[in-house]
């Protein structure tokens, strides 16, 4: 990371601003803070931040709407903060193009990790397409459609490989059920999540050491799935 990353923090709550902004600065980010959706859309064009941390409960605009407006202007990653227990708003924001979410009350490390992942995605997108990627002790070879653990090849069906490859390209990032269904089965399948559940169960049987207690392919309840690049300890 050669240049300083610039983060726009959008939250109307002063206490969150006062706690989170110094935290981000301490990690070397440059931070701009705004409190409304309108200010956020202006700041996105004025300050050209590398990433937006966006609270969904803003006083002037629906969070999803702010997300949509930012996406219209730029492809910069958006990490959503949600205080709502309901998942619908988070999922809507993710489907519109937010990269990830953190649910309040989150810990400092949780937020920093999400920000790192989202920023890494950008730098990876700029890098040339890789042929193979390693996730934990799995090696995924995109060009040869092979997955290897140690010296053993894991045989996957084409759909299983497609799902694993999709998640691996977005490692550590949550993908909504809808986004996965659309990518693998096409736009007509978005209302048939049962396909996905079956496929995830099959894939877990093959790649997880303990399929009942997954370490790689993690569920985000009601939202989607995430592939952990550094798998949780067993």
């Amino acid at each position, binding site marked *: 990371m050669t240049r300083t990353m610039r983060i726009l923090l959008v939250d*109307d709550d002063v*206490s969150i601003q006062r*706690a989170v902004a*110094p*935290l981000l600065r*301490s990690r070397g980010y440059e931070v701009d803070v705004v409190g409304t959706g309108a200010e956020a859309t202006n700041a996105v064009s004025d300050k050209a931040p590398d990433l937006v941390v966006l609270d969904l409960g803003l*006083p002037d605009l629906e969070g999803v709407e702010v997300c949509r407006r930012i996406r219209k202007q730029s492809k910069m990653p958006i990490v959503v903060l949600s*205080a709502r227990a309901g998942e619908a708003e988070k999922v809507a924001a993710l489907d519109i193009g937010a990269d990830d979410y953190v649910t309040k*009350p*989150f810990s400092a490390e949780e937020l920093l990790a999400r920000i790192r992942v989202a920023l890494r995605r950008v730098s990876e997108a700029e890098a040339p397409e890789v042929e193979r990627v390693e996730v934990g002790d799995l090696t995924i070879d995109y060009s040869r459609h092979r997955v290897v653990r140690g010296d053993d090849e894991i045989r996957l069906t084409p759909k299983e490989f497609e799902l694993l490859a999709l998640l691996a390209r977005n490692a550590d990032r949550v993908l909504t059920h809808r986004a996965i269904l659309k990518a693998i089965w096409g736009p007509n399948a978005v209302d048939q999540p049962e396909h996905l559940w079956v496929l995830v169960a099959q894939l877990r049987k093959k790649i997880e050491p303990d399929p009942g207690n997954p370490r790689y392919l993690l569920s985000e309840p009601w939202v989607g799935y995430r592939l952990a690049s550094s798998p949780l300890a067993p």
Partner: protein
Amino acid sequence: MAISADVRHLFLGSAGIALITLPLWRWPSFSNSTTVALGYLIVVLLVAATSRLWVAVTTSIAAMLAFNFFFLPPVGAFVIADPHNWIALFAFLVVSLVASNLSAVARDRTRVAETRRDELARLLDLSRDVLLITDSDEAHARLAGFIARRFDLEYAAICMPQESEWAVFRAGPRELTLDPRDLSSAFASAEADHRFTPEGVSLIPLRLGTKPIGVVAAAGRPLEPGTFEAVAGIAAIALERAQFLDERKSAELARQSEELKSALLASLGHDLRTPLTAIRVAASNLQASWPSELERREQSDLILAEVDQLTRLFQNILEMARIDAGAVTEDMRWVAASEIVDAARSRVEHTLRGRNLRIAVESDRLARLDPRLTTAALSQLLENAAQYSAADLPIEVAATIDGSGLTLAVRDHGPGIPPADLPHVFERFYRGANAKRRRSGTGMGLAIARGILAVERGTISAENCADGGARFTMVVPAEVK
């Protein structure tokens, strides 16, 4: 009345006959038997058309006798020599019978039509009355009252079968005891038509569709059977309607309580998660090595402020729960207005810190009330005023004790209450458009104040002042000395 009218008609008929008889008899050259007979016929017809049958027949006999006596040979004797004259007599009788019968039918029809119209008007009134019944608890008694009043009955009752006996909701001046056996047999009868008890009370089953639900009883004035059936129909509809309104009301209540629960959850979700996040992040910031001394101070201040906010939220939730559970009781004491104001002030000292508070206490009198509750309510108003006006603007508190009790008014110089929010400010979790920008409120303060005032039998109101800002006024009724 009817008798005297008949007598008058009889007298008029006789006079008419005399009027025809006298000149024609006196001057026979103007008359023959035809003119005389036609003259008499006119009189008989008039009497028959306006009066009852027996009057018409009597008049026609009188006319016949006069005809016979004065004009038919042998004149001056009630003897009929010529058989033609029997025909004349018979013609009089037939004319009078037919005419009076026709008029009687016409008058009967008119009378029936009038009765119908009258009863229809009463039914219409009754059907309007029953629209006033909105509470199913008193629906039966009110219904009986309406029926008795609209139909001038001495007794009207709605009888509903209970498990083993009859619940009778009666109205009207007459006291009657209905035999349950009569009610049960009327209730069970397959036909909708009414029947009479031995005491002359009419009974008719109340039906919803074909299902009997009760019995209507009426006495004191004969009702047309059709009318009585219509009354029973209206009564059944009214009871069904009251029941329906009741169900809708309880459904509405259930919906409101559901809404309240989800509002509570949404509010708690936000009000708890946000301060918890700030505390969590700020605490981990404190643990880290990067903050400067100044930054550490800032982060710990932040944590303390958030803990205060959570404490207040928690207190409000407790207070609300106590009010809801009816666990708030009064503890009366003699207090001065200034004590209440001072106590409320110190209670929300943290929120009011640095604020310009202008206090006007206009009385040295004492009021007997619960100082704890009154203080709690006033402190909610102070907190509200501090939250909804900028920190550099003054807050005014006015306290007066007059003959009826204690009045406390809190006025801020903020933006005031948007008119659309004004009717809702005392609703739980309602936070106006302005409030969305500030998290410091819990959305419960004013609702708590209202709840407390309700315990004290007082009132609370909100208004916008003409020169800007909002004023909240609470009145606590109290004994004063």
